[in-house]
């Protein structure tokens, strides 16, 4: 089930809310757990087994680690811990990379190993990272072990962030699992987050996504330089508004049930360097890798050679996390190299350049990066890049370019405006900052988003959700 569907908003959500606020406090976590399991099973029922396994296994592993450690049996604790890490990564690896691995093996080996492609369990990349954060933190004694299976199950399967993040670390919600309060104002704040996210996803991302799809489907002869850039820009906006919209909806839903999740995006397209971009893009993933991979490897407090190694390891893993294909790995390494160059060579230069030059520089490399991300393989990525730089024979500009430009001009303007913080700040300023407040303006704006989005949802012939793949 996805949030941006008629079914979720008009059937599932009202029922969950009704039940959640009717039952006594003691049962609230159980309600979230049960509905989360239904939510998870909705798309692919068999994989509910996997979810239940993850909950039970990590619950037991946590208790065992704690038991050994509290008795000073560090060796046993270590063994249990590494086994838990291996099992969690093993499941992720198997379901996500099994097909990729065999495909590459088949390409190298003379004999063909037959295999069946398995569909990817939804959200597995996200919840595996959550279980890992729990197991690691218990092992390092950073958090208390969770002895309540319902609370633990609620943490792993919580439907607001189940399928597309943000990746919530156990430490961040430990207290909220036990004790949380929902006030009307907080619920309303959650609603506002949810509706903003819905608008971003349905009105902005899906619409510009159609431009990208249409351009990506053009025969290469018709792809002029400018059309290729329009397509790339379309994807650049689509992925941001899609993913950040979904994160906003998750954060909003969390608030409605009293949870506070970490912000996942902070206007990444206004960054003045690649380093800054990654501090603002998919923040929960970046901080997960920093906490659990980069710092344990020694971070930057090591020799330059080792630091370079650490960066490249983290970014290769980041790439691989996004998908089991060479172009994702390349995409990750590409950022690793860019970050190293920035750190060791460009830093001083960037500091002296005017801000808008830095932003253009950042967006240029981010957009090139997305080409590797959206292409089905390395070959087609290079072909698309070729078209963007005039090696492709589609000319610089043609009738198709004009058509897409006219069709999406207005939307592009809206997208550019919404990529920065200015509009939202101004909106808050006008609504609340003046002598008189303009409550009606706020309410009208949010309800309008709701109404306009609902029309798209009802028409949902076109509602692909991009971040499912990861």
């Amino acid at each position, binding site marked *: *089930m996805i949030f941006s*569907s*008629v*079914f979720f*908003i*008009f*059937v599932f*959500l*009202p029922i969950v*809310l009704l039940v959640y606020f009717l039952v006594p406090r003691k049962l609230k976590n159980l309600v979230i757990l049960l509905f989360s399991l239904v939510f998870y099973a*909705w*798309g*692919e*029922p*068999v994989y509910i087994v996997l979810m239940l396994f993850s909950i039970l296994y990590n619950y037991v592993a946590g208790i065992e680690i704690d038991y050994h450690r509290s008795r000073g049996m560090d060796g046993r604790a270590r063994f249990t811990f590494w086994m838990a890490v291996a099992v969690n990564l093993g499941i992720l690896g198997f379901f996500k990379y099994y097909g990729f691995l065999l495909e590459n093996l088949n390409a190298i080996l003379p004999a063909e190993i037959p295999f069946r492609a398995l569909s990817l369990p939804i959200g597995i990349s996200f919840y595996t990272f959550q279980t890992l954060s729990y197991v690691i933190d218990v092992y390092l004694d950073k958090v208390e072990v969770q002895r309540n299976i319902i609370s633990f199950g609620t943490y792993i399967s919580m439907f607001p962030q189940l399928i597309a993040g943000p990746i919530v670390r156990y430490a961040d919600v430990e207290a909220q699992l036990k004790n949380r309060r929902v006030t*009307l*104002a*907080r*619920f*309303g*704040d959650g*609603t*506002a987050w949810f*509706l903003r996210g819905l608008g971003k996803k349905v*009105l902005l991302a899906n*619409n510009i996504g*159609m431009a990208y799809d*249409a351009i990506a489907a*053009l025969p290469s002869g018709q792809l002029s330089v400018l059309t290729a850039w329009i397509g790339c820009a379309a994807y650049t906006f689509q992925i941001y508004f899609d993913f950040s919209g979904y994160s906003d909806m998750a954060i909003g839903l969390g608030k409605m049930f009293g949870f506070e999740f970490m912000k996942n995006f902070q206007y990444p397209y206004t960054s003045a360097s690649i380093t800054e971009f990654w501090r603002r893009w998919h923040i929960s993933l970046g901080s997960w890798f920093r906490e659990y991979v980069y710092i344990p490897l020694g971070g930057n407090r090591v020799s330059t050679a080792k630091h370079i190694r650490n960066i490249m390891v983290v970014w290769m893993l980041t790439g691989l996390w996004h998908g089991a294909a060479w172009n994702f790995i390349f995409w990750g390494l590409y950022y690793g190299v860019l970050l190293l160059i920035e750190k060791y060579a460009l830093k001083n230069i960037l500091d002296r350049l005017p801000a808008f030059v830095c932003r253009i520089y950042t967006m240029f490399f981010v957009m090139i990066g997305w080409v590797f991300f959206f292409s089905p393989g390395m070959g087609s990525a290079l072909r698309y890049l070729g078209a963007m730089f005039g090696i492709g024979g589609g000319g610089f500009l*043609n*009738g*198709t*370019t*004009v*058509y897409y430009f*006219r*069709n*999406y*001009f*207005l*939307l592009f303007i809206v997208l550019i405006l919404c990529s920065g913080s200015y509009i939202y700040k101004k909106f*808050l300023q006008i*609504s*609340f*900052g003046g002598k008189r*407040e303009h*409550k009606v303006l*706020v*309410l009208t704006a949010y*309800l309008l988003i*709701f109404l*306009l989005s*609902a*029309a*798209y*949802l*009802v*028409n949902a*012939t*076109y509602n692909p959700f991009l971040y499912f793949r990861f």
Partner: protein
Amino acid sequence: MATRRENQEKIDRRTMRRRLLARRRAEACRWLAGIFVLLLAAAGILNIVTKDREFSDSENRMLAAFPEFTWESVKSGKYMSEFESYVADQFFLRDQWITLKLYEDILLGKRESNGVYLGKDGYLMEVPDEPDQENLRKNLSSMAAFAERHPEVPVYVSLAPNAFSILKEKLPEGAPVRDQAADIADIRTALGDGIRYIDLTDALREHHEEYIYYKTDHHWTSLGARYAFSRLAEDMELGETETDYTVYTVADDFQGTLASQSGYHKSRDTVQIYEPAGGETDYIVLYAEEGKKTTSIYDSASLEEKDKYTVFFGGNHSRVDINTTGTQDRNLLLFKDSYANCMVQFLLPYFQNIIMVDPRYFYDNVDNIMESQGITDVLFLYNLNTFVCDNSIADVLAEEEST
């Protein structure tokens, strides 16, 4: 001292202001929360109260019904996806929501909706399909082989270009379409010399300012078919043909498939039928599969239906035999898609028998028909967009294995 107090006051003012903002925001949030919950409740009630519809006229399709609950369907996830389509399909005021969505798109400057271009002057046009190259090649070689098997009978192929290439001026500015002239050239080369290709492009293009394609439907109008017919008649050597027709307008509120597909219901179309002024031909129409006989190629009941183009033959059939009382000595085997349905009214007077075969539904041996019906002419009449995506012609033309 003074500056310190000033600073303190400044900080106080800021704190006050921050508190004021927070209070106002919280207040607005409380309102939003209340309204949101009310709206969800209201939508819920409206959805329950609204009666389920079986069919959507405007979308021209069956709407999903409440799914049947079985363990199997839950396990496979079918139940869930059916449930979701049920909720979306039976959503209250569904048609109005869809219209709202279309206006949002137009407001944003989009000239395309669900695979349909919203052209100028209310013209809707298909976004062309990518050809199915593999099947296209198979079809073309099977047609060439078929012509070779029957050297005594002339085999004609005529593919009508679609509105998006004939009425280029009506397309949204710069809308990408296939180059159908190039497609035709490729097809002609592949068909080879054994087949006589009749190019309709010029005959239609010449009249592009007239009403030769429906605005809301992917078919040509009877007028378009008429211009095409004069070209066919010439190439097929039908002799002196009728030039004077009595035209009857049978519907003026037709909204075709493209209106359904796009959700854009602003234009209306007129459906006309043509009868030769110089006296009509008597004939019997036999629908082979349905075993139905009539004395008219027009199906007036269809005019009560949504799809008024089906006034010609009541739609598509696997095989239709038309026997005329005329004394001409020519018998036509017509392989066709729905474009041909409104062409037959022009062809009627010039053949003793016309056998219409729609390969999408037909599976009998066509070589048998060739012999038993004494076929003297074979015509493949399609619109180009359907033809390049067809995957049924080759199978129908395949030579029966002698067993």
